[in-house]
């Protein structure tokens, strides 16, 4: 289990190493490196998803490692409480940014191996702290530079805790 400690509370996550081996290992590595500490949930849309893991509280992008292959064809669905990798419009461009679905976002699921249908790779789920996610999704947002849907008060990941169960992963 990985716990993202935020200034709004803890969000505990379980990764799916079976169905999303690359994405889960990628997330775990960022967590181990402490990469997520000091990043914020910079895009929050109630009824859709909350996205974070790549921007600091000054809205500067944090440089991640090389992009990973998209595992959206693993059968996992973008349902409430699941975590998936965020990316650009290139399907295989995810690095550190992820999002938590706060709705059943069927349209984000894999439907074909083409740029339109690749979808977004689910690699884990929130196992504790969904109340924190539900508080986050309700916060007031506005635009900041070229970014929309940015929380007015920064929601920051202050610490990343990794349970012993993931020690040999």
């Amino acid at each position, binding site marked *: 289990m990985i716990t993202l400690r935020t200034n709004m509370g803890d969000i505990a996550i379980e990764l799916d190493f079976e169905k999303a081996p690359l994405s889960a290992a990628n997330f775990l590595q960022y967590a181990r490196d402490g990469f997520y500490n000091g990043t914020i949930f910079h*895009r929050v*849309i109630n*009824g*859709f*998803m909350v*996205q974070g893991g790549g921007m600091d509280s000054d809205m500067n992008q944090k440089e991640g490692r090389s992009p990973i292959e998209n595992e959206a064809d693993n059968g996992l669905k973008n349902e409430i409480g699941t975590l*998936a990798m*965020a*990316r650009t*419009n290139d399907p295989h461009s995810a690095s550190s*940014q992820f*999002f938590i679905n706060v*709705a059943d*976002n069927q*349209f*984000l699921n894999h439907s074909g191996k083409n740029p*339109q249908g690749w979808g*977004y790779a689910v690699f884990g789920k929130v196992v504790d702290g969904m109340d924190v996610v539900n508080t986050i999704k309700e916060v007031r*947002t*506005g*635009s900041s530079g*070229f*970014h*929309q*849907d940015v929380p007015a008060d920064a929601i920051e990941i202050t610490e990343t805790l990794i349970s012993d169960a993931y020690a040999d992963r």
Partner: protein
Amino acid sequence: MTRFFISDLHLAPERPELLAALEQFCAQRLARGDQLYILGDLFEAWIGDDDPSALATQVKDLLAGLNQREVDCFVQQGNRDFLLGKRFARESQCKMLGDYVVIKDSGGAILLTHGDLLCTDDVDYQRFRRKSRNPLYRFVLSHLPLRRRQRLASEWRAKSRAASANKASSIMDVNEETVVQVMAEHQVTRLIHGHTHRPNIHQHGAKTRWVLGDWGDFGWYIALEKGAISLEKFAITP
């Protein structure tokens, strides 16, 4: 006062993220006194102003809400929602615009159009367009039983998803001669349109043409403020 232009949202019940994106856009970009111009294909399919769907109601409420915030909203018909009419305009408190509209700002006149009329190389489409805009055709279509029209719309949407009909490669681009000719007829040097799903800025001699993009992975808009026109995009998908 800023004027915003959007088009080709292709709102559909199967694409809830697009309506969410429009709601966010309206909430965050539009301020009191601004104007919003929707240059066609707001909907993926529009079966008539008596459409009782949740989507239709949500959009009408959203646009009527703009009016309450003192944002004027103008709507042009597109090739996919050419049945948008007076009742829709009344319920959403928008003003319907004709196929060609000229607006003025400090820099002079700007022509607004959906863009399908500029695609004169697409002879089959232009033939269909003439037929579909015939008052008799529209009358018959809009007087089919609601159920039948709902089924038709659902089939259209399924077909365009399956055939990737909304991809730029499936839509013919404008005919440049037509563009120059239409701009001359309306005595403008600036044109804003959508339809082709090829967002860009083009020069035709001294004339400039801004093309809006369709909403999908990104939302596209054009902002006109103090004579300056900018084409902008923002992320919709994560």
